[in-house]
């Protein structure tokens, strides 16, 4: 992470839209224009928006796979180690390595660790929790969780310049444009 720019400047400029399609269109335009440090905010997942931002692959799947494999192997190992190596006890003549009986817990541990990996991975990769964020400084941003769609071009983008970017955003005919202070 680069150091945050001087706290005097704004965080970025934020355009507000009524319809998800307009936001996707504006985002695509900004990306084509060369903007990279930007983020779109919507009240529900909009198809194609992340792709318009140039974001294609999230690594959640891999994280979950790793979690599941670790949980499954760990779960079986735990049972095998304790029943075969650490304290083998003959129960009803069953073999020490009663693998059919170990399957249910192995399965549960696989699911448990995969699910934990999914949630922790999602939060971690998203950089959450983060209750304070500059975008919340815009009063109208409260509508981002209701019915408005926002595009924020950040000041740390090399292409960003307060006036030019403002004009660029205006061309997408947003409902409003606001400065996002730090």
């Amino acid at each position, binding site marked *: 992470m680069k150091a945050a720019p001087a706290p005097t400047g704004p965080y970025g400029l934020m355009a507000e839209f009524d319809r998800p399609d307009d936001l996707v269109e504006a985002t695509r335009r900004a990306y084509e224009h060369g903007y990279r440090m930007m983020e779109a905010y919507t009240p529900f997942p909009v198809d194609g928006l992340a792709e318009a931002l140039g974001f294609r692959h999230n690594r959640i799947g891999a994280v979950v796979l790793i979690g599941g494999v670790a949980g499954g192997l760990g779960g079986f190992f735990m049972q095998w180690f304790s029943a075969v190596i650490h304290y083998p006890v003959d129960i009803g003549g069953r073999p020490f390595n009663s693998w*059919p*009986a170990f*399957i249910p817990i192995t399965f549960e541990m696989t699911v448990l660790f995969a699910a934990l990996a999914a949630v922790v991975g999602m939060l971690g990769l998203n950089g959450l929790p983060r209750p304070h964020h500059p975008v919340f400084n815009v009063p109208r941003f409260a509508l981002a969780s209701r019915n408005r769609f926002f595009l924020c071009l950040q000041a740390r983008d090399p292409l960003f310049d307060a006036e030019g970017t403002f004009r660029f955003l205006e061309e997408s005919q947003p409902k409003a444009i606001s400065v996002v202070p730090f």
Partner: protein
Amino acid sequence: MSVSTNMIAEGELRLRLDRFQWWALAAGGLGLFLSLAAWSLWPEQFWPSYLVAYVFWVGLALGCMGLTMLHHLVGGSWGLVVRRPMESGGMTLLPLALLFVPLALGLSQLYPWARPEEVAHDPQLQHKSLYLNVGFYLVRTVGYFVIWLVFASVLNRLSSDQDRRADHRPSGKLQWLSGPGLVLLFLTGTFSAIDWLMSLEPHWSSTIYGCLVIVGEALATLAMMIAVVVFLSADQPMAEATTPDRLNDLGNLMLTFTILWAYMSFMQYLIIWCGNLPEEIPWYLRRTRGGWQWVALALSLFHFFLPFFVLLFRESKRQSRLIVQVAILVLAMHWVDLIWLVVPASSDPASPRIPWVELPLSLVAMLGIGGLCTAFFIGHLKGRPLIPLNDPHLNEVIEHAGGLGQR
């Protein structure tokens, strides 16, 4: 996708179908001839092989009927491309009903309860003779076929009716019929599995057995339908109808049934393994010793793990080449599964062996019954539109197809 053509197989597809049908017919004839020879030479080894092949193809026909009715009930775009092949698949019960006749001749070779000298020494079998006797067995089998054939022909007739009509009355009837039909099919499927397969070892019983066999049949049917659809979609008109989304849906269904099959198989094994009761465990002893353990291992690897991991990934379900390979693997393993269920039945639980001689016999029987069924199947399929044209859900399904890929 255009619905402008009448969707009847024409041109290149028709040629390929004709060719395939001819080959199937030839293979079927050859297979049946060889079967006849095998029967006269090794009658004892022949009957289990014939039963395996017979149950394999009946299972596919029943699976086709069941999935057709399931589709009438719950809808979904997956059924669109496979409905007609499934309806034709259900009709193969017609030749299969005839092919049961030789089986009826071999009952005493197959089933201990059909051998009076064995029953005379076995009080258990005497007790069970109320249910397990040749007469009642045949009556039940005839009953199953009557029910199945009635449903298969009604499903086909109403579906064809729909092609020629503007209103949706036949479709409504189909939907109305499918609920009770599915219940009836599930029950007859269960009892046919008990009669034909479970009673091979009349001392053993398992309450999940019917479900297990039915799930295996449904899985094999899905695999077969994927193969059929990919075969058909090499040419127009099906080339346009078969999108990656459809394959994805069918692949997901196959994944579900793969998991269900593994789940039920494992649960039965776990419960019987834990219980370790003398009346139950021999069933597994016969199937996990003397070479059969490797078959069991192969089943868990190639009937479950490999298809499961391949089908888990979205991309692999959307490539027709890959998914067809998985489907063929599943079909082959379903056959191995049936061999595993049937062939060890007559062996001694203390020292079972794999009777390798039966393998070619089984192949011959598969070829004979399968060739005949396939020829009949293609003949039936050729005469009708490959897509149910006036299905009330057709538009919905087409619309939906656009949105499917995005999730």
